[in-house]
């Protein structure tokens, strides 16, 4: 295991300054070797690793709005790799190892804080599932422990481990190397490096169509004109299916609003990250001091970046149930991102029926933590025209073959 982040920070410490210069705002060129559609975390990370690992710099990242303004700006920044399945833990663990060196790689203070993640268990089936995941993590070389309630309390004293709550904490899995980072800083770090390498980051540039020649994509039509492309990678999260519809490729992702919220700035009170599925909470305290919390998924589909308020109310009930000390905190702001969920809740990455078109979507709630890992693996896939081993299991054709990587996890049905 690598040492924890080399620059320990206490919650509440002032934020580090951004660099004086981030990126140019170039006019699009007539064509590029690689066009990445989507200037979110994944698109920017892919651009960075195309330049860094493969020396490919004649690249444009096209963003219909502002860079990293979609889910990258809206997630709760939890980073962990304690996934159940081999395929998932492999790519998330690769990502975590990259996270551990990312501040240095990007030369940007991304505030990666390995404060550990607790996943709480509240039922006997939760315990079975947790033990199963911990044992699988260990055999896969991912740091993981099963903790009894008193050990949970030692790591996070504010969790209500009393036995007389509605769903008592029966224990937790713990990944010490997990943590949080500052999302904008991460995105801007990748963007700045890509820009330095000569990659054009083009904002306010929506893709409206594709130019094709047989089974090759030759360019993209955009609100800023047609741009030729040697290869095209789609990193547009839930809007990927809107783009692939233009090419007649069906991509099975459904988009749902997922809300999150913050409190006012508070003195340090919450030392780690806590997640609970049964009493639905995931919460950390960000560096400035605000509690950052994710709510549940809205059940209807849509691209509107807003959700229904009863989801927030339910979220507050869960938060106060598990963390009585939060009762007095104030909700300062709510917002929503859009989770793009595939049928097996695993991403869809890799090649498509078009020889030079690459897909990357369906990350659901896992996109942020995967950012460096997928950027690395997608860059490899684009450069070598061959799925990187980390993404090979996540091909689109698994929905035909049935080789699913089902991260919905145990259905938790009780008899």
């Amino acid at each position: 295991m690598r040492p924890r982040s080399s620059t320990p920070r206490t919650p509440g410490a002032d934020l580090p300054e951004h660099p004086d210069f981030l990126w140019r705002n170039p006019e699009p060129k007539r064509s590029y070797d690689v066009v990445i559609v989507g200037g979110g975390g994944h698109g920017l990370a892919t651009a960075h690793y195309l330049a860094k690992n493969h020396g490919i710099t004649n690249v444009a990242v096209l963003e219909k709005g502002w860079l990293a303004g979609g889910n990258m700006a809206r997630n709760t920044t939890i980073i962990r790799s304690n996934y159940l399945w081999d395929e998932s833990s492999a790519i998330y663990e690769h990502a975590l190892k990259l996270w551990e060196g990312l501040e240095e790689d990007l030369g940007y203070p991304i505030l990666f804080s390995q404060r550990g993640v607790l996943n709480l268990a509240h039922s006997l089936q939760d315990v079975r599932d947790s033990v199963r995941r911990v044992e699988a993590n260990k055999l896969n070389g991912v740091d993981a422990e099963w903790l009894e309630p008193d050990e949970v309390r030692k790591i996070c004293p504010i969790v209500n481990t009393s036995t007389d709550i509605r769903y008592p904490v029966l224990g937790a899995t713990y990944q010490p190397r997990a943590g949080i980072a500052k999302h904008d800083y991460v995105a801007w770090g990748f963007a700045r490096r890509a820009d330095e390498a000569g990659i054009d980051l083009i904002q306010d540039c929506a893709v409206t169509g594709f130019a094709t020649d047989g089974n090759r994509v030759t360019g993209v039509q955009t609100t800023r004109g047609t741009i030729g492309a040697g290869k095209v990678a789609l990193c547009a999260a839930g809007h990927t299916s809107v783009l692939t519809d233009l090419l007649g490729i069906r991509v099975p992702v459904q988009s749902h609003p997922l809300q999150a919220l913050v409190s006012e700035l508070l003195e340090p009170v919450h030392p780690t990250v806590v997640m609970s599925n049964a009493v639905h909470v995931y919460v950390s305290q960000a560096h400035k001091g605000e509690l950052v919390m994710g709510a549940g998924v809205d059940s209807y589909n849509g691209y509107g970046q807003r959700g229904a308020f009863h989801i927030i109310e339910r979220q507050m009930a869960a938060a106060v149930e598990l963390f009585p000390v939060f009762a007095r905190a104030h909700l300062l702001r709510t917002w929503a991102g859009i989770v793009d969920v595939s049928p097996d809740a695993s991403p869809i990455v890799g090649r498509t029926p078009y020889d030079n078109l690459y897909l990357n979507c369906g990350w659901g709630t896992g996109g942020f933590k995967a950012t460096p890992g997928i950027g690395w693996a997608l860059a490899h896939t684009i450069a070598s025209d061959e799925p990187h081993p980390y993404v090979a299991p996540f091909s689109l054709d698994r929905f035909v073959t049935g080789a699913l990587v089902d991260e919905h996890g145990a259905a938790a049905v009780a008899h």
Partner: protein
Amino acid sequence: MTSPFRTPQGGRVDRATTVEFTFDGQAFTGHPGDTLASALLAAGRHQIATSISLGRPRGIAAAWAEDPGGLVQVEEPFPEPMLLATTVELADGLVAHGLPGQGRLAEIPDSARYDAVHHHVDVLVVGAGPAGLAAALTAARAGARVALVDEQSEAGGSLLAGTERLDDAPALQWVAAAVAELADHPEVLHLQRATAFGSYDDGFVLALERRTDHLGAAAPRHLSRQRVWRFRARSVVVATGAHERPVVFADNDRPGIMLAGAARTFLHRYGVLPGREAVVFTTNDSAYDSALDLHRAGVRVQAVVDARPEGSPRRREECERAGIRVLAGAVVTGTRGVERVTHALVAPFADGEVGAGSAIACDVLLVSGGWNPAVHLFSQARGRLRYDAALGAFVPGEELDGLSVTGSAAGVPDLAGCLADGQRVARAALSALAIAPAADDRLPAAPEPVVPSAPLVLWRVPDTSGAEGSTSFVDLQRDATVADIARAVGAGLRSIEHVKRYTTIGTAHDQGKTSGVLTSGITAELLGVPVQDTGTTTFRPPYTPVAFAALAGRDRGRLFDPERVTALHDWHVTAGAVFEDVGQWKRPRYYPRPGEDMEAAVLRECAAARTGVGILDGSTLGKIDVQGPDAAVLLDRLYTNLMSSLKVGSVRYGVMCGVDGMVIDDGTVLRLAEDRFLVLTTTGGAAKILDWMEEWAQTEWPDLRVHCTSVTEQWVTFPVVGPRSRDVVGAVFPQVDVANEAFPFMTWRDTTLDGVPVRLARISFSGELAFEVYVNPWYAVAVWQRLLEAGRPYGITPYGTETMHVLRAEKGYPIIGQDTDGTVTPQDLGMGWAVSKKKPDFVGKRSFARVENQNPLRKQLVGLLPVDRRTVLPEGSQIVEFRADGQLPPPPVPMLGHVTSSYRSAALARPFALALVKGGRSRIGDTVHVPVNGTLVPVEVTGSVLVDPEGARRDG
């Protein structure tokens, strides 16, 4: 401490009563009706805290929620981490202190009560200022069902802060009359201290009512402290007023620097003078009212500094009559002072250039850069905003269905206009609702509005201090300056969202109420683009912060999630059952006798069921009554096996799969009639499966004539299990022939017990001879007691879920959700027999044909027997290949599967387990390893049925 800045009279505080409070450890007094801010100002105290990053002194800068300066922590009587001094109503015994940016969560539990109310109205009016009152009156007089909510302690809005007159009398007289008239309408709900904080689709508006804090110790205990109102309005009228906007200049953050309108509020509403010597800096006419009112109240107004080249000729004349100096074409370029402003630096200003200036002594500097309509609720509801270049502000840029904006929130400039606009908007709303306005719908006569001189839009004064904008504060709460915006733009940022994130402007407690539009303006200026193109960042709920506890409401503790118990719960408690949470249900897990631990109790309960008779409360099993001519068709399409061929009177086990062919639930189906089935689901799957059936029936096959109804709670279910169960059931229900031939396995019979209908079914989840007894829950205890009584000669033993699990596992019956995880097909479970080959289609069928489903290495359900005959494998353990050296290799170690269920078996006299193992059925007889606490435990792979594989026991 005394209150030297309290005016001799005036204001809306109760001067007859004095309340005591403590701020930063110092004792103060004030009056009911004060806020913490007004009481501190009355004592001459402006500074509240120091700033978050730079540690600069900060004071009260506004009079309500838009104040960026006065953050406090309240310690008593009710601890809260971060509030604004301007919105904390004074109550006796209040203890608070200033906050340098971070609040602290008190450790004492919040024992206050919070609740929520749904309220449906024709018209919801937000804001009880002139426009809102006019709108509410218009709607109420028309007979509409109306709610009027306002965040202040009393109605009146801007009228509370001024000296306006209506119908030739003080305007507040009209406000009082309007409030009284509204109170007379039975269909009107009028709430003060209720902040509308969220606006959603279809007229859904949330408001937080603060009900008790202002009462201090006198608050009745039975009242909830705060209440969330969930309004659903056919029409929403947003009359939320406007926030005054500052102008940014060097050192504009010192205590004593305040919005001009706020000073007027403190004077008229609270009877407080903000200082003795004032300088007023403005870009528009409104601040002249503050200058003149303060002058009349005895404040020495040193100068009105008007950035407009000509100022306002009419207002200048008024000032000159009062002896107030007006400096037109001038600006404040900076200030002096540390803990309080001491001088305003004033300089001529023309064509964007600042000339040589001079210092004017003052202890308060009032600033007005214009007014920003409070468009938050409109914008939250996805209303598009339009930049109004004349106002220098964003105003509603479109009409929304069912939501309109009126008064100064819509940019209406004067009182007469606001009243008329409120009425107009309300009438339009009524018209859309087909409600006729009242014949008598009179509004008070307002003075003829005076056309003001055109305002100047000025975001910032050029910094001549040499600090290059680094002390020109845009967002005081974030210590963010003009220099920060310039740096962001210099870094290549063009989007206002990027500027926000780079500078953190707008992310603090006030969410950019005063800083947001300034940032848009300054960014646009620096980029040389129109402000409209820069736009604003997104307005998000809540408008002002809301306590977590208020939103959690009553859903805390035991009410966090409904606790479901069966009709026998009290009996179980008396019997000493240990309970298990199964979904929302409390189920007995086992019934320990004195001195027994779980293991001993379960071994005893298992032995009873296998050798004598046991009884289980199975009432939590989901039950769905499926009726209609097409009931059988629906079930055929949802189950993998055939249900239409089931005969009335018979029972069949069935499996349901998702579209991916993975098992989602199982259970038995009783055919009650040709067109009626009783579907049993797992306990945890009951709601999900009903949803599943409804979704398919409603969205995919609406042609099917079928209805599904949950009857889970209409029947209790008691499996009576074991070789002696026939004796027990036969004794209690003598009208039923319980012989095997007359009542075969997988059939059901109806009977009665003392006239009460009872259904019996021969279903077994243990492999033993068993009868399930169904009865209405009213009779649950009586029937249960009869069964116990009849079973006493055979030692009938109640057992819980743990024993149920062991018994079924010994027979290899899987529990969906424990032995499956959403990746398991019926074939994987060895239940290929339950998958129909005849049916043309059913949910999941197509997926069975996929390549991966044919893979011989799929995980299959098998049994495991630890070779040492002692180890109970932890459930969830992983399984690896047998290692001859008994050592785990370094990771990654390939895994074969995992242990899904694991128990001690009384029948086998050894521990056993069920597991999902890759190619498991082909490994039967092999030995594999299970890592347990660092050692490898050898286990033998077996078939999944370990007890009575020939099925000899089920018929007794």
